[in-house]
């Protein structure tokens, strides 16, 4: 439970048992009766001699039956000092009845301690026991609830306080066009794509009406909807508008494009432009067919931020590139009427009958507010009607009665282990990869397995380097109490993840792929792998990159990283948590030269993503020259390519289960927790805001006011 202790230590002066009793007793008196008991017990033992065995067993039972909380804390210690046996037993039992008035506390202490000991060495041991009753009961009692405010907005107008840390797109979702980083358009109901996610399938036609996929999967012809109007009298949407957007975003055709994830389009279409056959039909040649072409790449919720949102080509031709940077001409139910880069955007309901849905609100104004405290204050004062809320405040907002709205989105945070470069040929070029010269294998890294030269000096007998590293990664996956992180870092919202890319809520998920929290098993695995604890209890050192600390408002990744590091430390692994700009870390990933584990969702770690999507593109040599999860595997390559070209969904699910079993066994990318993306609305003003499944908020046309 190192997570809870942080690094500071309360120091007591003398040998420990009295302090255990004292701390518990004092604390019990101090807070007797409350449901939340936090006990910090510090044992500082002074023992002589060479043979010292200390066993500290802390057991706790928390039973919540109705309103009675029974807690039992048993602490037993055996200290063997130079032949003489000293047995110390401390039994502390407490019964706390919360609702009633009786508080029964029993403290039993038995101890036999030698009177005089010569101090040779000081051993410091910190035991912290956190006992909590049910979170619900705790929250009701402890949270400082907020009175629901009356909205200060003009009737019909909605104000939304978003994070907006990214500059151009105030929602930080990348660009629809390299020239016009209005990535927010899809969230604001202003931009529309060919396809949109539905409840089960993600390839529900939006601007597309129908499509015709060639039998050999070499091309597709898409018929688009007729009569869709661009905002501000820019005319009807035509096929050439869509073809133009796609070609302009594809860097193989427009070298100026540095739109996020643009390389997805290059992978899909190569350098063959998409053509407008007539006013309402486009035709595209696939370079590498991927079954996600409609459900992801040409979708409203495209991954990595790439969006091919329909934009008027005529507006661009007449006004030029610079104009496009400040103006957005789309087809959604709202038009962007005021856009201040990095500051705010105002969307106003279009003046005509929209083809899809007429909004019931007049306008939506999105403000970029980086400071969480201010976003809560705005909502609390009725100055904003919806605010993005950090995980820490979620429980409080929920308890206060604010309306939770969201798209079911959650970011899975896992730790990927770069340096495991197991492919021998570059899947793009077909050239052999020269491994002996590759830097990642020069040193023996505990979490990196070398399949090219599996016998090295430090492997225990009977275990090759691959197995050795597998055991290490398994231990790193099993030594973390995911529930505790959800509870204490995420305030009880969010849920554990075991293998990144796979939601545990998915019906296809199987509990056999969980990594149970078992530090003892992890310790045994590390022993087996040839990393026993040394005299200081240290097995080896590991760095963990958790992304930029700059931009602290970006989410709880830093705290999750600290928590994981704390659990790893508990099994004897020294962790250095690295917090700096991703831009500095990235070159090592691109060149495949880093071995530093990174806390990330690695592109596709989204709770909402379908189980059957091809997994692991960025875990192969297919993305050499660009981003990757840092490890490459020929098996993953085979599964990815099979799934990507497999039209049958059940077959893709079967393939992905094989991939899942492989990832679970090799533990290349164990997941830890999912961080929910949640927004809270003022229920006195907003009655409901249904959204389609997605990565952020969307569909403000569905907002219903009271």
């Amino acid at each position, binding site marked *: 439970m190192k997570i809870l202790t942080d690094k500071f230590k309360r120091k007591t002066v003398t040998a420990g048992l009295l302090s255990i009793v004292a701390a518990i007793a004092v604390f019990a008196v101090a807070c007797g009766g409350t449901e939340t008991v936090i006990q910090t017990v510090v044992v500082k033992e002074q023992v002589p001699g060479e043979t010292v065995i200390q066993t500290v067993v802390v057991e706790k039972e928390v039973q919540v039956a109705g309103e009675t909380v029974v807690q039992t804390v048993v602490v037993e210690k055996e200290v063997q000092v130079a032949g003489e046996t000293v047995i110390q037993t401390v039994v502390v039992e407490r019964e706390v009845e919360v609702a009633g008035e009786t508080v029964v506390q029993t403290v039993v202490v038995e101890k036999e301690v030698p009177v005089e000991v010569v101090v040779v060495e000081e051993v410091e041991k910190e035991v912290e026991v956190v006992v909590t009753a049910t979170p619900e009961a705790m929250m009701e009692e402890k949270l400082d609830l907020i009175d629901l405010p009356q909205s200060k907005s003009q009737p019909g107008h909605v104000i939304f306080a978003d994070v907006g840390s990214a500059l151009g797109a105030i929602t930080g979702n990348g660009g629809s066009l390299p020239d016009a980083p209005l990535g927010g358009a899809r969230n604001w109901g202003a931009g529309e794509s060919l396809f949109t996610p539905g409840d089960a399938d993600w390839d529900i036609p939006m601007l597309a009406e129908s499509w015709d996929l060639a039998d050999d999967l070499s091309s597709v012809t898409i018929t688009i909807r007729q009569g869709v109007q661009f905002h501000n009298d820019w005319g009807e949407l035509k096929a050439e508008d869509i073809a133009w957007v796609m070609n302009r975003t594809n860097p193989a055709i427009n070298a100026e494009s540095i739109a*996020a994830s643009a390389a997805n389009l290059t992978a899909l279409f190569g350098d063959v432009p998409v053509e407008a056959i007539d006013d309402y039909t486009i035709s595209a040649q696939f370079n590498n067919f991927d079954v996600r072409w409609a459900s992801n790449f040409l979708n409203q919720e495209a991954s990595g931020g790439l969006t091919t949102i329909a934009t008027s080509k005529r507006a661009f031709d007449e006004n030029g590139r610079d104009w496009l940077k400040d103006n957005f001409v789309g087809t959604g139910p709202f038009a962007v009427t005021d856009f201040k880069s990095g500051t705010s955007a105002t969307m106003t309901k279009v003046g005509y009958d929209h083809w899809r849905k007429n909004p019931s609100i007049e306008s939506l104004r999105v403000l970029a507010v980086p400071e969480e405290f201010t976003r809560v204050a705005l909502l609390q004062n009725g100055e904003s009607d919806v605010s993005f809320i950090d995980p820490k405040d979620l429980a409080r907002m929920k308890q206060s009665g604010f309306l939770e709205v969201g798209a079911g989105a959650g970011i899975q945070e896992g730790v990927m282990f770069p340096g495991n470069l197991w492919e021998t040929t570059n899947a793009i070029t077909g050239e052999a990869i020269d491994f002996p010269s590759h830097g990642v294998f020069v040193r023996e890294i505990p979490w990196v397995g070398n399949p090219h030269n599996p016998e090295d000096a430090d492997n225990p007998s009977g275990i090759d380097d691959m197995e050795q590293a597998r055991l290490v990664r398994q231990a790193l996956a099993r030594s973390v109490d995911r529930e505790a992180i959800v509870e204490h870092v995420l305030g009880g919202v969010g849920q554990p993840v075991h293998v990144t890319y796979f939601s545990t809520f998915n019906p296809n998920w199987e509990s056999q792929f969980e990594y149970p929290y078992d530090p003892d098993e992890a310790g045994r695995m590390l022993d087996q792998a040839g990393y026993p604890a040394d005299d200081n209890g240290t097995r080896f050192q590991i760095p963990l990159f958790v992304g930029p600390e700059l931009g602290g408002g970006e989410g709880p990744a830093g705290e999750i990283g600290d928590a994981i590091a704390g659990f790893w430390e508990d099994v004897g692994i020294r962790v250095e948590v690295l917090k700096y700009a991703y831009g500095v870390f*990235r070159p090592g990933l691109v060149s495949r030269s880093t071995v530093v584990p990174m806390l990330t969702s690695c592109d596709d770690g989204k709770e909402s993503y379908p189980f059957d999507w091809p997994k692991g593109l960025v875990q192969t040599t297919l993305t050499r020259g660009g981003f990757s999860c840092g490890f490459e595997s020929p098996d993953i390559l085979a599964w990815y390519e099979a799934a990507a070209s497999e039209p049958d969904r059940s077959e893709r699910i079967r393939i992905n289960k094989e991939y899942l079993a492989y990832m679970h066994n090799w533990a290349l990318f164990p997941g830890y927790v999912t961080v929910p993306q949640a927004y809270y609305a003022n229920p006195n003003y907003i009655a409901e805001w249904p959204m389609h499944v997605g990565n952020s908020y969307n569909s403000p046309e569905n907002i219903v006011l009271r």
Partner: protein
Amino acid sequence: MGQFIARRVVLGIIALMLAMLIVFSLSRVKGDPRYFFIGEDSLGIDPAVWEEWGRRLNLDKPVPIQFALWMGDILTGDFGDSVTTQRGVLEIIGEKAPNTIQLGIIAWLLGTLVGVPLGVFSATNRGNFLDYVLRGFALFGQSVPIFWLALVMIFVFAVNLGWLPSGTKGEGLAIRNFVMPAVALAWFPAASYLRITRTAMLEILDSEFVKFARAKGVAQAPVRWKHAFRNAIIPPLTLSVFVLFGLLNGTIIIETVFAWPGLGRLAIDALWATDYPLLAGLAIIYGAAFVVMILSLDIVYALLDPRIKYN
């Protein structure tokens, strides 16, 4: 005097060019600067685009030439495009600058109008209760982190009392939205002004000519204002330029807390996004503005205090 100003201008230009050298060097510390100039994309970038950027940044040429070309671009007003928004750096700065200038000037006036008179008051009432209160305020004012002060203000005045809006610049000329950011921003300068003015005032009040005037029987008030204050104004005046300049440090924090759409927020956004052209542009524009302010100060000095020699 003309020669003096000419020399100052030359020195200012040299300082600005060296400042550019510092900014340029920072982009080269990690080797390939392209990582600072190309936005993050999750699946990598086309090699052709990568090469294109190499050409655009003149990476094929020796580093001193790279610097010279970069500086040449900047001197001709070409600060390049922001990585994240693909818009001209100058254009973006121009868009945000008015918001920061408005806030900065209000905070500056507030700090001056509160700090200087209180400093004079404190000096002329030296040793009594109010003097101690004011000195305590000055010390405390210089001792609290302003982000903490700003958050407490939001908690008290927006959340608890409901008197003022919690943040943002509001629509149109929303004076109420200015109050908290301006006060939080003026807090530190006001305390500095108070201390400096008080010290300067005491020094002058202690000087021979004021004692002489007092001995001559000139009344207390004229002594304070006519003789002492005119001479005591020089240190606060010097301070004021540095305060104005130092407000940028404050706006970075204050604009983040209050969601104020100005240059401070812009700087932080650019930093989070590793938007190097924008960061460099901001640093250089600020440097240039400061050089101009110092030059003006030199001229005002010369007019105010004939004792200053020009060498």
